């Protein structure tokens, strides 16, 4: 297990329990106080309250799929259901020869390079002029204490330059994010969780959202995209959750349009008869934070196309 910021504890050298605790960055108080501390900790563990950190979560998440599908190479997960369904993959590859999202990339490029009346353009708001940076989104903004998705950052950029924010559902917003994803193809997803309790809380909220059953049909994301991954639901192969965040925005034939990851979240919530939340609201941004973090190391291949 590797931890990014391992704190140092003093004393108790050689004690296996203490070194385990140290590994979890918990420094137990010394001597007899320690004993009651252990008792408490054992009780906590017995109650199944797990002291996990995002990186070991991610490793276990990847290991879950690798154990279930040992023949599927990791890099294939960014292709979703098409990594598992040969027939659908063939159709998809045929469609990709005439990418239905191409118009959005073109439109996005034009919009991205246009200058605002004040002379700035979108590039001025992002590192590297906004080119090849999709893999870093969403990120935790320590100044505002919240998760910032690419779409939110695009609107923050507009507001900073005196422009009205764009609607999230369709149109220019999606085209700009499609272009920014396109310039980032092949870059590895690199979501960071800074050493800030608020960032960890956001991650945890997203994680809880993902694993919580909701709606009349009583399903969580976990059930459809982990437990039943690769099984059929209404003539569609359920994609594994790993790699799902790599190709957004996506052109979906069912929408006959491009849409964001949050639009997909809305669809999936509605499928279980759970009242969906608002795009770019805190809950979905935190879900995206956890969801994308799980795919760290996989390549951006957006914008994509799906049925």
């Amino acid at each position, binding site marked *: 297990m590797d931890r990014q910021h391992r704190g140092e504890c003093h004393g108790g050298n050689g004690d296996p329990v203490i070194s385990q605790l140290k590994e979890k960055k918990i420094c137990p108080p010394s001597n007899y106080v320690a004993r009651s501390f252990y008792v408490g900790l054992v009780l906590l563990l017995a109650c*199944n*309250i*797990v002291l*996990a950190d995002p990186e*070991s*979560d991610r*490793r*276990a*998440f990847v*290991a*879950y799929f690798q*154990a279930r599908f040992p023949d599927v190479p990791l890099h294939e997960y960014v292709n979703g259901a098409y990594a598992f369904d040969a027939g659908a993959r063939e159709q998809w590859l045929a469609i990709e020869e005439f990418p239905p999202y191409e118009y959005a990339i073109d439109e996005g490029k034009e919009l991205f390079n246009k200058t605002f009346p004040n002379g700035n353009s979108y590039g001025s708001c992002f590192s590297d002029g906004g080119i090849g940076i999709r893999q870093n989104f969403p990120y935790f903004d320590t100044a505002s204490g919240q998760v910032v998705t690419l779409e939110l950052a695009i609107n923050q950029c507009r507001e900073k330059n005196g422009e009205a924010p764009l609607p999230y559902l369709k149109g220019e917003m999606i085209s700009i994010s499609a272009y920014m994803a396109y310039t980032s193809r092949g870059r590895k997803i690199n979501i960071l969780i800074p050493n800030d309790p608020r960032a960890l809380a956001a991650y945890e909220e997203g*994680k*809880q*959202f993902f*694993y*919580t*059953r*909701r*709606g*009349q049909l*009583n399903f*969580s994301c*976990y059930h459809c995209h*982990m437990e039943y991954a690769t099984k059929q639901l209404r003539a569609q192969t359920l994609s594994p959750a790993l790699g799902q965040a790599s190709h957004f925005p996506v052109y979906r034939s069912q929408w006959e349009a491009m849409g964001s990851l949050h639009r997909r979240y809305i669809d999936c*919530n*509605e499928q279980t*008869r*759970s*009242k969906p*939340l608002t795009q770019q609201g805190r*809950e979905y941004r935190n879900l995206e934070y956890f969801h994308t973090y799980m795919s760290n190391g996989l390549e951006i291949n957006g914008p994509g196309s799906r049925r």
Partner: protein
Amino acid sequence: MLQRVLIITVFLIACSCSESETEGTANRETAQLAIRQAETMQMAAGQPGLEWTSIEPLLDAARKAAVQGDFKKAITLAKEAERHAEAAVKQAGYERQHWQERVPHRENK
């Protein structure tokens, strides 16, 4: 054989009793009470992300039936809405305690 007849008879009596009971109490007042009860339960089930989309249509239909004077239908639908809302509250409570159990852990593999 006799036993079976007995069971069926008891069953039929029970059914007709409960039937006549609802019919007997279905009026504007009881319908509105049932709707209010369902609305209260819906509010309890109204945490963002945990609401069910099945509740509002049932409630709407119940209100409509009450307006149209079909109180029996209004009560049936309001009770169904309340049942869904109650299940949503239960689900949310259960999930708060149990969601962690699904998180994969390497150690447990």
